[in-house]
């Protein structure tokens, strides 16, 4: 069959160049729009479109939280449970980007879900929990994140979660338990929440516990007080044998990290926000050719710019993904997590400037950013 091969490739090559030709004609017919802009009018979730999702359902979980079921566009590349997704939500007409953990394993219907807890004064979380409606479109990026279970699944797991920190973990659990053959993993889930009623996925977790699929230790702040890591050895005597994961408020994660470090154990953590230090004095931010924007010492340059209507690259908004990096040409910025100063002096710091993460950097004097 060696003769058929070349003719086959020519045909497919011809097919490809025909398609390419048609595409060029279509593009010439819609200029100055891009072909995608026109197709978006009819099919925003098609293959090749910017990644978006349609809200299919908003299901309340507790008084403060809801699960948003999404139908992503055809180019959604899937995810590993425990990962998160960046979503762009139009709140009062303004597109705001936030990050949410995926709360299902991959599903047969290709849908994905996030579970959001409304925090007091939180713009996007309150919108998603209380105002989002089926049919609305949101913007999406592909899944990201390292907070995933290793393969093969370890024999013994410890999962420590606080409040909405349950979200990446429920994704892992649902995925494990939906398999045809449930892995024989010994799982302890230590979950801390304000009260019994505030436990997101409470009844589902209790069912898993009743079925013997995991051991659930619930701690409710209103009756038990805050989780004290000193109790950890008592609650989980075989701590050292377990592969440990934790997600929750910064205070909890810091205490856990210290506890594990002291014992030479490793702990995988997922943080929902960066830990910040005291703010500096602020300054101004100028983008190539623009007018200087006033920037206080506590507000990330990313927020300053977006509030002024500048389109900025961004990602996790907490300093981990590097999706927001831009070159600082001149001036100084302060890292909001540790107070470190980064300076750029024209002529001294190279023509390309110094790359900075705008999401965790605040102006420390007048800054010029190339964008």
């Amino acid at each position, binding site marked *: 069959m060696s003769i058929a091969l070349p003719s086959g490739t020519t045909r497919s090559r011809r097919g490809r160049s025909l398609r390419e030709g048609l595409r060029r004609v279509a593009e010439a*017919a819609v200029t100055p729009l891009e072909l995608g802009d026109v197709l978006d*009018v009819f099919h925003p979730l098609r293959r090749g479109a910017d990644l978006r999702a349609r809200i299919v359902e908003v299901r309340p979980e507790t008084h403060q939280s809801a699960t948003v079921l999404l139908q992503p566009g055809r180019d959604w590349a899937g995810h590993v449970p425990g990962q998160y997704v960046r979503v762009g939500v139009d709140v009062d007409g303004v597109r705001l980007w936030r990050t949410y953990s995926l709360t299902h394993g991959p599903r047969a219907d290709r849908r994905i879900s996030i579970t959001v807890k409304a925090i007091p004064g939180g713009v996007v979380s309150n919108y998603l929990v209380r105002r989002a409606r089926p049919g609305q479109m949101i913007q999406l990026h592909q899944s990201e994140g390292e907070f995933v279970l290793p393969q093969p699944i370890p024999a013994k797991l410890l999962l420590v979660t606080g409040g909405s920190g349950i979200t990446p973990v429920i994704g892992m659990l649902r995925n494990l338990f939906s398999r045809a053959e449930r892995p024989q993993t010994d799982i302890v889930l230590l979950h801390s929440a304000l009260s019994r009623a505030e436990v997101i996925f409470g009844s589902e977790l209790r069912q898993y516990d009743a079925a013997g699929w995991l051991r659930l230790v619930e701690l409710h702040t209103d009756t038990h007080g805050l989780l004290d890591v000193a109790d950890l050895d008592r609650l989980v005597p075989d701590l050292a044998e377990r592969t440990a994961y934790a997600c929750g408020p910064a205070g909890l994660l810091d205490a856990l990290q210290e506890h594990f470090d002291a014992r030479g154990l490793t702990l995988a953590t997922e943080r929902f926000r960066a830990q910040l230090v005291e703010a500096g004095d602020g300054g101004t931010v100028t983008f190539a050719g623009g007018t200087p924007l006033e920037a206080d010492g506590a507000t990330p340059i990313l927020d300053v710019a977006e509030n002024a209507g500048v389109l900025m690259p961004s990602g996790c908004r907490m300093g981990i993904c590097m999706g927001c990096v831009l070159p600082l040409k001149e001036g100084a910025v302060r890292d909001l997590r540790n107070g470190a100063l980064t300076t750029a002096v024209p002529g001294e710091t190279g023509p390309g400037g110094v790359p900075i993460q705008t999401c965790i950097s605040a102006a420390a004097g007048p800054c010029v950013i190339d964008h």
Partner: protein
Amino acid sequence: MTAITKKPVNPTAHLTPEDIEQIGIELDAIRQDILDERGASDAAYIHRVVDVQRRLELASRAVLLFSSLPPAWIVGTIGLSVAKILENMEIGHNVMHGQWDWMRDPKIHSTTWEWDNASTADGWKHSHNEIHHNFTNIVGKDNDLGYGIMRVDEDQRWHPAYLAQPLWNFINACFFEYGIAAYDLELGRNLRLPKERRSDEFKRNLKNTLKKIRKQATKDYVVHPALSIPTGSFLPTLAANFTANLVRNIWSHSVIMCGHFPEGVETFEKKAIPANETRGEWYLRQMLGSANISGSKAMHIMTGNLSHQIEHHLFPDLPSNRYAEIAPRVQALFEKYDLNYHTAPLPQQVYSAWHRVVRLSLPNGWLATTTVKNLPEQAKLLWAMSTKGPKVRRAAQARLEQQARRQAAAAAA
């Protein structure tokens, strides 16, 4: 119009500096109110307009595939004309002003938008947003609409070449998009320079503009006509696209003329603008340098809400759908400070603007002193002024002006 500072009665003479600053404060308050309210309904508005425009354009172009049938030609051409007008006026112009940047939607943003026009978005944003909106109606600085090629002010010395300006203005209207592209490039000034002295920036802009024009022309005059060949509609589609561009050009030219050209709109002297013009003074200049068009909601949308030219010049970056709402407040402010809020229906403003173009194409005072009876004499005078050199011209000019003054004084008495 004579620059405001050279007029016998300056229409702002009754305002104290404190008044002017107070006007600024009150206008800032109006602006802030809209900024505070701006939200989901505004976003929904522009999304709807963009959606309607795209569907209308696609549908019209689809109908034009059969444009050898006269009804299809008519329907398709009307639809395409409206779509092109919407695209340039209510969408393109306003998006490129940054009116929708606050939505942070990269698809509807001043830095990413490219419009259906011969001029490039970048070139237009420079000449329109930076120059025209900053230096509105300052003679010699604001290039908008033919300062430079046309005589738009009594203070510009008359020359016989200006006799042709009504014709130039008409040609400019028909090919307005190319006119805009040319003045975005400052083509006249640059072509007068020897080749080697033209800046790299100009060469780059010229290249981009030619590329844009080629793509635009390929779309309207090659690709779509070619797609219509199967129904034998190559030429009808080509003609339809040309017509739609023509309609769009004349329409946008008319709207823009109405914005700054009708009789009664003030112009300003370069040297009379203080170097550190205050916010109040800047606002005042915008208030007097613009004119509105009154009419229906559909008319406002088709003009891209430039029918609210005064509001647009005061607040160029507020979303256009809000101008109608703030117009009564702005008008009340004009009344409070005894200023002329210049507004009239479209035909009247177009007539007034054209009247000014014609009047200024003639020597100062000529039109005012001409009656049916003395027409032959006046024509002879004009002929002499046009052909007999500067000396004759100056003398005749002085006489004409004296005559016009006397006539005006007699009318007043």
